[in-house]
């Protein structure tokens, strides 16, 4: 069983002011950063196209993340039930999907294989690996949004 993330109009995520504030607990640390378990989403762009997923233990550690819809309109990752359980998710419609961005000199890429899923109610998050999806770790970000 899996839950397909419903298409969510982008304004919906943008106007949710609560998105900026709460501390999010990682259900499992991000690979490569085992010591960091609590993060906040800091809005970097007025329209909510870009956030900094920032460690509260170490403010210098941050990841640029973005809602995938404007950049990858066809991207709708399937969230497995064990992920919902790890997030204590009661309502899958309250999940946010964020992709991790690598801002390079020549190109900017997004990690579509391992998005960060945030439950706005339980305030838990997890970076999931979409095993078997064939999604790229470095998808060049489309400028035509």
């Amino acid at each position, binding site marked *: 069983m899996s839950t397909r993330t419903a298409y969510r109009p982008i304004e919906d995520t943008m106007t949710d002011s609560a998105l900026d504030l709460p501390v999010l607990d990682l259900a499992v640390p991000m690979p490569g950063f085992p010591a960091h378990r609590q993060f906040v989403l800091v809005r970097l*762009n007025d329209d909510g196209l870009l956030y900094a997923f920032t460690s509260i233990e170490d403010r210098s550690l941050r990841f*640029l993340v973005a809602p995938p819809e404007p950049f990858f309109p066809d991207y709708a990752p399937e969230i497995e039930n*064990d992920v919902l359980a790890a997030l204590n998710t009661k309502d899958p419609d309250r999940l946010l999907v964020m992709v991790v961005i690598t*801002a390079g000199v020549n190109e900017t890429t997004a*990690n579509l294989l391992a998005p960060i899923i945030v439950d706005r109610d339980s305030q838990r998050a997890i970076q999931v690996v979409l095993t078997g999806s064939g999604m790229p770790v*470095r998808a060049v970000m489309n400028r035509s949004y």
Partner: protein
Amino acid sequence: MLVLTRRAGESVMIGDDVVITVLEARGDVIRLGIQAPRDVQVHREEVYKELQAANREAASPTDDAVRALTRMLNKEE
């Protein structure tokens, strides 16, 4: 490295709550079943390493890179 010999259907315990069961061995392909608690993620090693490298590369971009990206997004409006 601890080396154990197991047959199909037999298991290995790691700690108190991780169980790895050999489901099938066919030639040089072994199928494993893994039971682990929710806070233990299980990945193929090469996937984990790729993800670790990607996360490290993405972590803590320079202010210049962030500014450039923010500018690009704002301009596209």
